[in-house]
């Protein structure tokens, strides 16, 4: 059932000189699922994202989209295939309006007096507000500056923008990392909405409590290697946490702390 997967990494390794950033990692993203990529700092998450996004070509192994092996030469090519990555910096400009940010680099253009090409602000405003409303984010005024939005709203804006510009696969790099509880909740809701519209999501995080409720499956990375992919039914939250943190090590620490407290 290879065609069941929209995106596959097959035994992918990535070397930077003598550094082995990724070693034989296999990751398969089913169509329409939320796949959580978990790992502690230094586990190779960033390298894996950049490989998926087309920034780094794999050193060995195969990258397949819709079952076909591909070699992206630039992130732009991945984007053209509908694979959109929302990095932590979100690529938003705080001093620009919601609409100007939403369409930055892909401005809608109309002809003024049938002659002068101008940015179609009316269309940009209406579309930005509409698309954000579809995702459950109420912005009444598209000329509001992004700087006046909360971190959660900005994250949602970046995700909504990626979806509007034809993302089939959303790669979200720690979207809840800098957010409070309620704002994280809004982002998780948005991921849920995206899945309901048939978009496949790779959700990178080191927070199991955010990952577990929303994910359909998990891949855990540790020191550049995959510890395996698990369906939600097959694994408990505790088991994921334990695997991520290096298992026995952290258990030992917990025991020690509890023992001392007792």
């Amino acid at each position, binding site marked *: 059932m290879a065609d069941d997967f929209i995106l596959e990494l097959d035994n992918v390794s990535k070397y930077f000189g003598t550094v082995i950033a990724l070693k034989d990692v296999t990751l398969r993203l089913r169509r329409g699922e939320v796949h959580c990529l978990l790992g502690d700092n230094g586990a190779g998450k960033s390298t894996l994202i950049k490989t998926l996004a087309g920034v780094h070509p794999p050193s060995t192994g195969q990258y397949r989209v819709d079952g076909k092996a591909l070699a992206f030469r630039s992130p*732009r090519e991945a984007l053209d295939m509908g694979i959109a990555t929302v*990095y932590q*910096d*979100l*690529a*938003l*400009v*705080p*001093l*620009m309006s919601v609409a*100007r940010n939403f*369409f*930055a*680099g*892909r*401005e809608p*253009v109309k002809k*003024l007096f049938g002659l002068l*090409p*101008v*940015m179609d*602000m009316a269309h940009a405003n209406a579309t930005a507000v509409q698309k954000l409303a579809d995702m459950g*984010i*109420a*912005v*009444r*005024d598209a000329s*509001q*500056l992004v*700087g*006046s*939005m*909360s971190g959660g709203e900005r994250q949602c804006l970046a995700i909504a923008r990626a979806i509007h510009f034809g993302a089939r696969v959303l790669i979200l790099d720690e979207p809840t990392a800098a957010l409070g509880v309620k704002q994280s909740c809004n982002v998780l809701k948005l991921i849920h909405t995206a899945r309901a519209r048939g978009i496949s999501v790779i959700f990178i995080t080191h927070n199991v409590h955010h990952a577990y409720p929303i994910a359909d499956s998990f891949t855990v990375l540790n020191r550049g290697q995959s510890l395996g992919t698990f369906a939600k039914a097959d694994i408990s939250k505790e088991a994921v946490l334990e695997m991520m943190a290096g298992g026995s090590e952290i258990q030992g620490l917990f025991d020690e702390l509890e023992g001392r407290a007792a």
Partner: protein
Amino acid sequence: MTVIEETLGMSKAGDASPDERVRRLTAWHLLMGRPELGAIAGAILVFGLFGVFAGDSGMFAIDGVMNWAQVAAYLGILAVGACLLMVGGEFDLSMGSMIGFAGVMVAAPVMYLGWPAWVAVIFAFAGAMALGLLNGYLVVRTKLPSFIVTLAFMFILRGLTLVLSTYFANGTIISGVGDRLADDPIVRTLFVGSTGAWIFHGLASLGWIEVLAGGEPVVNGIPKVILWWVVLGAVAAFVLARTRAGNWIRTVGGDANAAKNVGVPVKRVKISLFVFTAFCACLFGVLQVADVGSAAADRGLQKEFEAIIAVVIGGTLLTGGFGSVVGACFGALIFGVVQIGISFTNINSDWYRVFLGAMLLLAVLFNHYIRGRAAAGK
């Protein structure tokens, strides 16, 4: 104090809107969000002040108006270029030196190499824009602050201007070029003198403006520099506000990395802006040579700072990403009114620079306040 209370009161009203995710934007907020507000308010203030202190001195008679409008127009041309560049997140400190250098690029070939005036003018524009390209290329290529790169060119160009004028004219002034420019029909049409004399003759015959002893009206047309300023300002304001390129300039200045990630050609935008500022500086230089009739090594001295001050008074942030061409034009207008107006009052004109420095400080404080509000979302 009332302003602050008013704002607080209004944001409270905003919080009370039925949907907690929807903020109500008041007219006050929208007004405060306009970058050019400060400059327009400043211009009104300055007009008011001079209206009181110099209202009956002839400053606001037609010839007085042309006088300060011309000063404002020269600076305004420069400020329009500097404004777009600063919204794009960069500086050009070589603009003032470029004015002098462009003047020599026109005058020396005409006077000493026998070139036709129109060829020399094209040569000057091409040369200036090539230097702008070099400035821009060095900035985007080395990723050094444009402050340093263009500071280097400020000295290089000023020095070259002196070297060339000494080499050709054996002095710091190349004179006699004015007549040669006026003799060339293309150059005369575009850059020399004023236009629209018939309007003023008409107005004079209606008795609306004063007439000199010889029957000529006191003002015999609108200086072309003013027309250039208006046209250039209108085009640049339109580009920044309404076009795709305008959105790119804002994005590049706001966050160059974000701009790159959303597919904006950051390097091309920045280099184009440096070329445009060089064009503006050259236009200043050519118009001045045509007006004064000579090129000189000290032309445009410190104009880069005046342009930056006008742009900052106009509400453009020094950090880029936010600003207004209309604001910059009002900033230049304030300059012109103050510089000329002060001589119409009994205030000692030594106070001119004090006033400008104070204006700049006020404008920066005001911008800082606005930006803080925008970032904090108040």
